[in-house]
């Protein structure tokens, strides 16, 4: 059975790995790229023109911290000229009000501001950046004044899960349009720090109950998007809406990936946008075709009625926890490895995300 390759809808463009914050939950890889490895402006602009021609309608400008790229205005302008909807995903501490104004004039459609905590001391502690909270609030207010829609992104883990109700209040106080309560996904630095970040089961249950209630209560007042923690769910999430189905990632140095953790699958060979047109990588590269559709699936997933809903879950997580990237994602209750999910020991030390790499290897790599 073959499958149609549809044109991609969205790109997560990681413009840089540099970031003034050092969050231990960051999903960036442990080996962060230095500035000299980043794509030049004209390469990014060409990439985005190609993407628009392919049918990409939305680009998420992310990082690291995308506002550290001095050419961000140019990038936004090029995307806007080509009719692409732009979403800036920022920690906001390095974003001045003048730049925000310039980005808005360049055509920026939406800004997503991450808050590491709902309280100033939590934001400061998790991001290791003084006064970060006040800075973020300033940027959010400035964005609303400019008429930019704002999403507050709350990355949730053990150290801030108790603040979920306060995040809702914060989003309302800042006149945000959306609040994203996103339980951290354990890739990169978050995987390394998993034992210190994974919330307890009871806290998760309490959070799910609270969010379900408040969402209903705030219908038409605040949009709340909820990314539940997949470690405690019965079924996995469809990563990226399905491998190579309608979105892809570009890393700061130009590697085109089906998902942002895909490079953890060492058996796959990835291509750079420097070497090949995006269209060719999307349609022809082995890495994109490896887990596209359902042909690659193990018999358990292939026979499962949910296979077109979650596509067997996350390939990277399957590999990390079972050693086989074609296995059922172990967060699924049908996985024979499902027990491994609950075997994670708890610790209290979080390693700061720093360029130059982690002090110790991730547990998965030691095994």
């Amino acid at each position: 059975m073959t499958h149609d390759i549809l044109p991609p809808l969205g790109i997560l463009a990681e413009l840089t790995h540099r970031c003034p914050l050092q969050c231990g939950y960051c999903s960036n890889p442990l080996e962060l790229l230095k500035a000299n490895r980043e794509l030049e402006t004209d390469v990014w602009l060409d990439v985005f023109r190609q993407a628009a021609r392919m049918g990409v309608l939305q680009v998420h400008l992310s990082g690291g911290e995308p506002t550290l790229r001095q050419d961000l205005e140019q990038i936004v302008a090029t995307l806007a000229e080509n009719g692409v909807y732009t979403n800036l995903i920022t920690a906001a501490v390095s974003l001045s009000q003048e730049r925000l104004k310039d980005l808005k004039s360049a055509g920026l459609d939406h800004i997503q501001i991450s808050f590491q905590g709902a309280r100033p001391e939590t934001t400061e502690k998790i991001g290791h950046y003084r006064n970060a909270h006040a800075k973020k609030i300033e940027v959010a207010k400035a964005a609303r004044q400019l008429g930019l829609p704002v999403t507050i992104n709350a990355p949730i883990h053990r150290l801030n899960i108790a603040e979920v109700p306060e995040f809702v209040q914060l989003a309302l106080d800042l006149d945000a349009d959306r609040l994203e309560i996103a339980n951290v996904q354990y890739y990169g630095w978050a995987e390394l720090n998993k034992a210190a970040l994974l919330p307890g089961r009871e806290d998760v249950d309490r959070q799910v109950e609270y969010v379900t209630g408040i969402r209903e209560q705030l219908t038409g007042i605040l949009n709340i998007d909820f990314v539940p923690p997949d470690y405690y769910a019965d079924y996995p999430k469809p990563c990226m809406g399905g491998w190579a189905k309608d979105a892809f990632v570009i890393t700061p140095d130009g590697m085109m990936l089906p998902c942002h953790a895909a490079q953890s699958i060492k058996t796959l060979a990835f291509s750079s946008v420097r070497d090949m047109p995006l269209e060719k990588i999307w349609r022809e590269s082995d890495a994109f075709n490896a887990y596209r559709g359902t042909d690659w699936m193990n018999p358990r997933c292939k026979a499962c009625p949910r296979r077109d809903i979650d596509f067997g879950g996350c390939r990277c997580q399957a590999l990390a926890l079972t050693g086989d990237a074609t296995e059922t994602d172990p967060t699924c209750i049908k996985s024979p490895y499902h027990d491994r999910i609950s075997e994670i020991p708890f610790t209290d030390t979080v390693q700061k995300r720093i360029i130059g790499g982690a002090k110790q290897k991730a547990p998965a790599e030691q095994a």
Partner: protein
Amino acid sequence: MVATTRTRAVLSGTTVPGIPPYVRLLFDKVREQWAVLAPEKVMWPDEISIEILKKCDGAASIDAISNALASEYDAPLAEVAADVLEFLQEWSDRRLIVVLGPAEAQA
């Protein structure tokens, strides 16, 4: 409990709906299909939904939109009006359309 001065808009026939600047209605040439782009979302509404959205020009009331659709599609007005109101209320609840005209009773 959370505190907010915001209220949920309850739409009626006299409401004038509009598309906010951060929601974009466009014809996608690659897929030859209408799309709605919103913060972190791409939607593909069906033909009739697109017709409703196109008429949300910030001037027409929901009654006017229903009237126009009923005559274009040669369909009973009461049915059309109920469908249009339900659709727009749902989109308003997701903050994808905004109320621009007469402030109605708020729940």
